[in-house]
């Protein structure tokens, strides 16, 4: 399939890119293109112009920034997956990145592109919300920092305003006693998440002091399982408390998404099983960490 014609721009700076987006109504930002180009090939997306941010310097790379780690928007999944810094300081993110798509997709797809696309079956959003990450965006009115939880607004919809571009993602450095896990049931064809669970837990003196559980793939945006926190915090993480926390998933999504491969009901069930397993793995890691 072949896309419709469009104008193409390759700015050198973010300011230039913002100006182009403002000038060309309906223009889309092109990074790795692994969400946008397939949609354009099917003519499901027909932007009149593309602003390719691939040539803008400083948008790619992973570096420590105080108590956080910054990941540039055009950093590809393979780089996140292989980052020693992240594996040491925020292992949930490389674990998630390694499960995206396939080798070739991970070599081209970018973290900024993935989250700006806000596909409900994507992997990063679930993990980023669980981590309490921050999305850094820049637009005509300067820079904004948006909590990941607020960034994903709806199906393929983010908090980005016209002219704004994702420039980086900030993830917190996990401390001692923190454990995390991302588990997904991949679609057998697309490898997108049919259901996913990200768990981040803190354990102090054998007792859970924080439990962040987020599920993906079942709803328009990642869903935080707030009651999992209640079921776990202050308790010893064991089969009973983990089971009670995971059981909260089933009641949480009244109207889950379904398709020919997996109904909404099954997705929620899968999510609860994955939640249980992710929590168990996270606590196991917290013990070792």
């Amino acid at each position, binding site marked *: 399939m072949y896309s419709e*014609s469009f*104008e*193409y721009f390759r700015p050198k700076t973010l300011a230039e890119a913002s100006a182009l987006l403002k000038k060309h109504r309906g223009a889309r930002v092109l990074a790795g*293109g692994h969400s946008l180009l397939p949609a354009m090939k099917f003519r499901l997306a027909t932007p009149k112009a593309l602003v*390719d941010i691939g040539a803008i310097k400083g948008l790619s790379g992973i570096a420590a920034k105080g108590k956080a780690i910054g990941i540039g928007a055009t950093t590809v999944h*393979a780089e996140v997956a292989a980052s020693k810094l992240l594996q040491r300081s925020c292992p949930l993110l490389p674990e998630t990145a390694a499960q995206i798509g*396939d*080798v*070739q997709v991970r*070599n081209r797809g970018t973290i900024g592109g993935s989250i700006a696309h806000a596909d409900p079956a994507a992997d990063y959003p679930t993990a980023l919300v669980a981590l309490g990450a921050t999305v850094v965006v820049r637009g005509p009115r300067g820079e904004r920092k948006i909590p990941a939880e607020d960034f994903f607004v709806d199906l393929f919809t983010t908090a980005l305003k016209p002219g704004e571009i994702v420039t980086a993602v900030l993830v917190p450095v996990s401390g001692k006693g923190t454990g995390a896990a991302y588990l997904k049931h991949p679609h057998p064809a697309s490898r997108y998440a049919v259901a996913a669970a990200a768990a981040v837990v803190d354990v102090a003196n054998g007792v859970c002091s924080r439990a962040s559980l987020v599920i993906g793939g079942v709803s328009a945006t990642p869903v935080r399982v707030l009651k999992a926190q209640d079921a776990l915090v202050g308790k010893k993480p064991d089969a009973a408390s983990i089971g009670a926390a995971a059981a909260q998933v089933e009641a949480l999504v009244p109207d889950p998404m379904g398709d020919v491969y997996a109904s909404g009901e099954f997705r929620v069930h899968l999510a609860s099983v994955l939640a249980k397993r992710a929590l168990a793995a996270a606590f196991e890691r917290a013990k070792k960490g």
Partner: protein
Amino acid sequence: MRFGVSITVNGARRKHEVEPRLLLVHYLRETLGLTGTNVGCDTSQCGACTVLLDGKAVKSCTMLAVQAEGASITTIEGLAKNGKLHPVQEAFREKHGLQCGFCTPGMVLTACHLLEKNPKPSDADIRHGLEGNLCRCTGYQNIVAAVKEAAARM
């Protein structure tokens, strides 16, 4: 609208004016006549169009030619040197890692990338590393054997 691109393909610098919407795979196949890179799907699943972009396996059907500006690309035509097959190509022949051969260029280049990153892969590493390449003929078993054989030869 046409856009100038300068791309190094199999070691030679190529310059063309292309339509922005031209996919890299069609640039290779139609503009350059390098028809070894195949198109097997339209949703980035099959991997038949895989080429090495600055040494990394990418799907050339999910990339615009203009995005390859300044990059260095290796296609299947660029793998054999001076008429001698690359060890991965040799191993595919030795282990019968191909039947109809349509997925083979992409499979071979993905295998090259895999071995670059992991020179001594296990069967599981190889199978996982090939998840972005579909083959309908071989059932993968001999492809896995071929990649192992190539690892031993390289």
